[in-house]
């Protein structure tokens, strides 16, 4: 997620959409910030508890003060702050000596994976500022850029007061913005805002971005949380998070956090940032202010997941029709132009502000994107047959799925067939299909093929590898899969892995599929994370079954479908011997994660049971082994004693009449036993016993009775 505590507000919003009791992070590894905020047990509710304490319960080093105001924001003066508890003053981090001379720590503002954030007081001037301490010294410093930042006009950018390194840290000293971030402000006074207010935001941000760009810097991460407020009246906004962080950001993938990817332009998915990237982000921020929520926010304010956002960014225009005002909509269309080189920049926005109407590259979609372009008579030969009608080609692609995959497999090689297809699509003005080729094919060829076919003919039921995916057919497929048909199971797996249902959303017969798919993926991820915490290892076949089950429960109103079997499974007395299973079975889960919980219980109960049985068998084996060891030990003891006893008995057989008659055979017996301990003593005992007995008969007894 974020790289430092400066983004504390991010975790707040993450926490807001990832409800307690789940973790969306499939790796589930503690030690990642995202995990810390959304892991089960660490219930965070950013919306309701601003200004409460640090979440000390989660893993050290990952603790983000999810609820505190952003780094450079004080509680004082912010309308939503509640009294700080003593815990807030808890300071985990000390300043390195070089800084301690100059600054006095006031408060811990939070921490991220890479950095701690401290509010400090300048010992000389007494003024507040913010120290961001990176817990590593090996960060390369771009002196030139940092120098530029320090000299930058403080009107537009948050002031970088100083930076340095030493004692295992790299630090930045930043200006302290007293009014928090735009995101806080949005929380206090929710959008939609009055156009006049949005104008004042625009008037602050557009020049700031233009100024930063003029310094040769691209921010790359403009979002409400990174826009800080110096004063409210008049509104004075500055861009923050320009400095050193970028070096870290550069090594991290964007997109691990919805709040970042929701504002990032499409080209950022491939890592291609340019100056125009910031203008896209500005468009997204303004959209949010005007409409009241981001295009990637659901009506209830929760955020869509990253995968979905990426899919949307790749495949769809941002629909700005929710902006009613014509002039504003023009601005957003200009800023949210997908092609970076055609996106509006400083000139166009300035023109727009002055009341002008600069041209927008993409025409405003009239009613639907499915209007047939003017027919081209170009013919594409697919599987030996000529096509010049997109609809017919779409049908052929659906029919001859594998041939389609073979053509698309030529993308990286730029094979003639692939290039001919792309060329043909362009001639027939199938921009969406071309986009699907460009972005969708490499990672997931089947999804790419499906998108191409759908873009060619959006008016038919989508088909995946010969399987119709409208509601009725999908249910049939699901039924077959549940019944154990291998082909159906495999297709469902592919549909899951490729996120096929999402792209079908809204096509004929496929309404509500994005939600369905989202619930499905979410619950599977939740279940997997929970299973990982139990440490149980689940076979692939069981995982497949679990995915199926969770698709069933993802349908509206079906989430309790498996409540009863899960309850039964949780009663498995053998399984309950395992502490982890006991914990799992006794766990209370939030409503929306119950289906996942049921699946986990059902999947792991047999494992726990097997573990118990194995443990019992093992215990039994060990008991038998111990018994046998004891027996052998005892026998050994006897054997050991047999050595002297055998010899003595032998001697007695030699010397004492009558008694020798008994001690002779005894000596032979003991001698045999003693053989394992001492061969010579055993030979002696047997010999003496044998000869003694004979002597008894022949000499001693006759002599004694004579």
């Amino acid at each position, binding site marked *: 997620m974020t790289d430092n505590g400066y983004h504390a507000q991010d975790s707040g919003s993450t926490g807001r959409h990832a409800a307690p009791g789940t973790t969306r992070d499939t790796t589930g590894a503690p030690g990642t910030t995202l995990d810390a905020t959304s892991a089960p047990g660490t219930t965070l509710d950013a919306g309701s508890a601003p200004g409460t304490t640090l979440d000390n319960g989660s893993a050290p080093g990952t603790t983000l003060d999810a609820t505190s105001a952003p780094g450079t924001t004080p509680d004082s003066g912010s309308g939503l702050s509640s009294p700080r508890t003593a815990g807030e003053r808890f300071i985990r981090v000390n300043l390195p000596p070089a800084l301690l001379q100059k600054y006095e720590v006031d408060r811990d503002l939070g921490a991220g994976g890479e950095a701690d954030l401290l509010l400090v007081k300048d010992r000389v001037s007494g003024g507040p500022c913010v120290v961001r301490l990176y817990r590593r010294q090996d960060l390369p410093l771009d002196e030139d850029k940092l120098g530029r930042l320090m000299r930058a006009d403080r009107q537009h950018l948050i002031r970088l007061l100083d930076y340095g390194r030493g004692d295992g840290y790299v630090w930045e000293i930043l200006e302290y913005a007293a009014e928090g971030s735009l995101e806080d402000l949005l929380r206090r006074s929710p959008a939609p805002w009055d156009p006049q207010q949005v104008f004042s935001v625009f008037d602050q941000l557009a020049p700031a971005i233009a100024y930063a760009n003029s310094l040769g810097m691209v921010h790359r991460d403009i979002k409400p949380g990174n826009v800080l407020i110096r004063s409210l009246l008049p509104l004075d906004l500055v861009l923050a998070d320009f400095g050193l962080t970028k070096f870290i950001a550069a090594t991290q993938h964007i997109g691990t956090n919805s709040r970042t990817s929701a504002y990032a332009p499409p080209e950022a998915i491939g890592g291609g940032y340019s100056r125009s990237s910031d203008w896209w982000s500005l468009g997204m921020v303004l959209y949010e202010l005007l409409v009241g929520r981001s295009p990637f926010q659901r009506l209830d304010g929760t955020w869509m997941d990253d995968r979905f956002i990426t899919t949307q960014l790749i495949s769809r225009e941002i629909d700005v029709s929710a902006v009613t005002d014509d002039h504003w909509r023009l601005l957003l269309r200009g800023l949210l132009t997908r092609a970076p080189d055609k996106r509006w920049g400083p000139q166009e926005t300035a023109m727009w502000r002055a009341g002008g109407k600069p041209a927008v590259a993409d025409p405003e979609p009239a009613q639907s994107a499915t209007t047939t372009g003017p027919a081209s008579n170009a013919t594409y*030969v697919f599987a030996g*047959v*000529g096509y010049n009608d997109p609809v017919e080609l779409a049908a052929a692609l659906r029919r001859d799925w594998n041939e389609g*995959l073979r053509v698309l497999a*030529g993308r990286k*090689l730029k094979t*003639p067939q692939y290039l001919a297809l792309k060329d043909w699509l362009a001639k027939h003005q199938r921009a969406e299909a071309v986009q699907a080729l460009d972005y969708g094919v490499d990672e997931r060829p089947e999804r790419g093929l499906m998108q191409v076919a759908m873009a060619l003919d959006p008016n038919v039921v989508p088909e995946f590898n010969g399987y119709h995916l409208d509601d009725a057919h999908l249910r049939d497929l699901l039924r077959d899969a549940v019944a154990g048909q291998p082909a159906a199971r495999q297709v469902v797996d592919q549909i899951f892995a490729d996120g096929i249902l999402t792209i079908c959303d809204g096509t004929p017969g496929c309404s509500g599929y994005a939600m369905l798919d989202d619930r499905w993926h979410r619950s599977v991820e939740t279940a997997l994370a929970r299973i990982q915490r139990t440490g149980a290892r689940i076979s692939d076949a069981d995982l497949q079954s679990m995915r199926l089950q969770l698709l069933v429960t993802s349908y509206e109103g079906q989430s309790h479908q498996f409540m009863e079997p899960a309850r039964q499974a949780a009663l498995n007395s053998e399984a309950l011997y395992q502490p982890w299973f006991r914990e799992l079975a006794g766990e209370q889960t939030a409503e929306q994660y119950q289906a996942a919980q049921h699946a986990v219980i059902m999947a792991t109960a047999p494992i726990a049971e097997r573990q118990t049985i194995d443990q019992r068998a093992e215990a039994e084996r060990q008991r038998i082994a111990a018994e046998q060891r004891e027996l052998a030990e005892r026998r050994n003891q006897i054997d050991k004693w047999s050595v002297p006893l055998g010899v003595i008995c032998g001697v007695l057989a030699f010397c004492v009449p009558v008694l020798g008659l008994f001690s002779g055979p005894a000596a032979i017996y003991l001698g045999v036993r003693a053989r394992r301990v001492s061969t010579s003593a055993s030979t002696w005992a047997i010999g003496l016993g044998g000869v003694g007995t004979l002597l008894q008969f022949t000499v001693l007894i006759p002599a004694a009775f004579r």
Partner: protein
Amino acid sequence: MRQLDVVAVTHRGRARDYNQDTVSVAGFQSGVLEGQPVRFAVDPVRPVICLVADGLGGLAEGSRASRLAAATIADAAPSLHDGRAVADAVRAANDAVYAEMAVRPAWSGMGTTIVLLVVAGERIICANVGDSRCFLLRDAHLVQLSRDDSVVPPPGEATVATVVTQSLGGRSEPTPVAPHLIEVDVSPGDRFLLCSDGLTDELEPERIEAELVKADDPVAAVTALLGATLEAGARDNVSIVLVTVPTEPPAEQAGTAQEGTVP
């Protein structure tokens, strides 16, 4: 790179009593009536050429053209380091065919298609004229690298297999050709299939892909493809060249030594 494993075969099929196809691997050329798969191990220290030429026309002159074109291109092998040189070699073969035509009036109009694969270091250059094809099998997908010089059919109709829009020779007057070129970076395990239309007219790509994927040995793969073609009728001459790029070393070294012997 270790040695290339090449298996080649040419066969007259079941309907023709002559073989106008020519295959050539690193200069070894064959146009026998009913060949058996032959396996080569070629060290690609210098550019290696594998090619299939499909002589055109019902008369024996088709084979003359294909043999001549194959020999001309194979002779140029040492210089074929880049696409331009390959294109030049193909043009030179075209000139050679027309020059040969001038020798006897009866040979006028003889022609041939050509598809060739040049392995030059880590690059592979594929060039073709006509409808003999080159496929790459990578990640279990059969991707066509060559571009057919076929007449684009009217919408809704199938391509007419017997007509090509350009060939080496094939007309009475010398006509220049524009070979289609594609360059590909080699990756270990790649398999390139060169074939005449005698194979692709009989077997769907799907089938060819399946046969290649399931065969565990190049000779078995070629044998299976040839067998399937003959079974399907083999109305034309069939030629198949399968080039296998070795997987990275610690694959079994012993195998290479064995492959050195031509069965």
